[in-house]
């Protein structure tokens, strides 16, 4: 049975880290797995580095980092929304125009009397511009025949993470940060 030295353990750990495995617990799993394979299969006095290279090559298809990417993907999968193409466009539309419509409704609920029951153009024009423009884009995407839309085929499901979704919300709520236009 081959005995792996501390120096060789450090070598393996450095190598798997250099190959893109950054999660500590995953490093521990892989390090132990590789060490057992070497200890059980390499003859005493055998070429450690050559055997290690051959062993690590069997762990992946293209790159070792695939294991970490798959680990992160599976571990965070339950925090994702699975949407159909149409649900995704509907959600995108709501996120884009929601703040403008919300601002208009908030204005209508609080200030029409002070403005002499007038709905000023400063309120509705930006809504029309900023809400209708993405609507037109989305309508085009929505009605594009599948053969011209290879990016998101009609039957595809979209995996939407909460993290990117939450990052989009502040930018779409910019209009609500403006002072009242009067």
């Amino acid at each position, binding site marked *: 049975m081959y005995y792996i030295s501390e120096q060789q353990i450090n070598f393996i750990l450095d190598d798997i880290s250099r190959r893109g495995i950054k999660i500590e*617990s995953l490093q521990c799993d*892989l390090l*132990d797995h590789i060490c*057992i394979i070497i200890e059980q299969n390499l003859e005493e006095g055998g070429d450690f580095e050559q055997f290690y290279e051959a062993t690590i090559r069997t762990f992946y298809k293209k790159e070792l980092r695939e*294991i970490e990417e798959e680990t992160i993907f*599976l571990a965070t999968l339950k925090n994702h929304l699975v949407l159909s193409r149409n649900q995704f466009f509907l959600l995108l539309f709501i996120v884009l125009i929601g703040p403008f419509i919300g601002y208009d409704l908030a204005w209508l609920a609080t200030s029409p009397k002070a403005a002499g029951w007038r709905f000023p153009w400063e309120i509705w024009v930006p809504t029309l511009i900023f809400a209708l423009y993405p609507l037109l884009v989305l309508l085009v995407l929505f009605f594009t025949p599948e053969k011209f839309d290879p990016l998101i085929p009609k039957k595809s499901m979209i995996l939407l993470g909460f993290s990117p979704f939450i990052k989009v919300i502040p930018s779409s709520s910019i209009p609500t940060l403006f002072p009242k236009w009067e």
Partner: protein
Amino acid sequence: MTYSTELIKGTLKTIILKLLSDNKKMYGYEITQNVKELTKDQIQITEGALYPTLHALEAEGLVTTEVEYIGKRVRKYYSLSPTGKAKAKEKVKELANFIDTMITLLEIKPKTA
């Protein structure tokens, strides 16, 4: 004959949960060897499939881990949490039903002794 990755991928969670319910605690390499022995080499779990699945089960709270130091390196043992024990039973039952359905669907006659 070794089964295809596609077939194994859909059943990997169930296989791991069942093994952990039969054994108190196991480490990654032990799981791969156990499956290999039990299936006479017909199912070979790759490291690229095993560890992401184990970490996903841990993130779901179905397995817990404990570490043991082997010299300078760490060995991580996986065991079922109470939720994991219930889930293991549920998944095995689900897979058994699925196999029955497939036998009916594909009109496969069960082997008689």
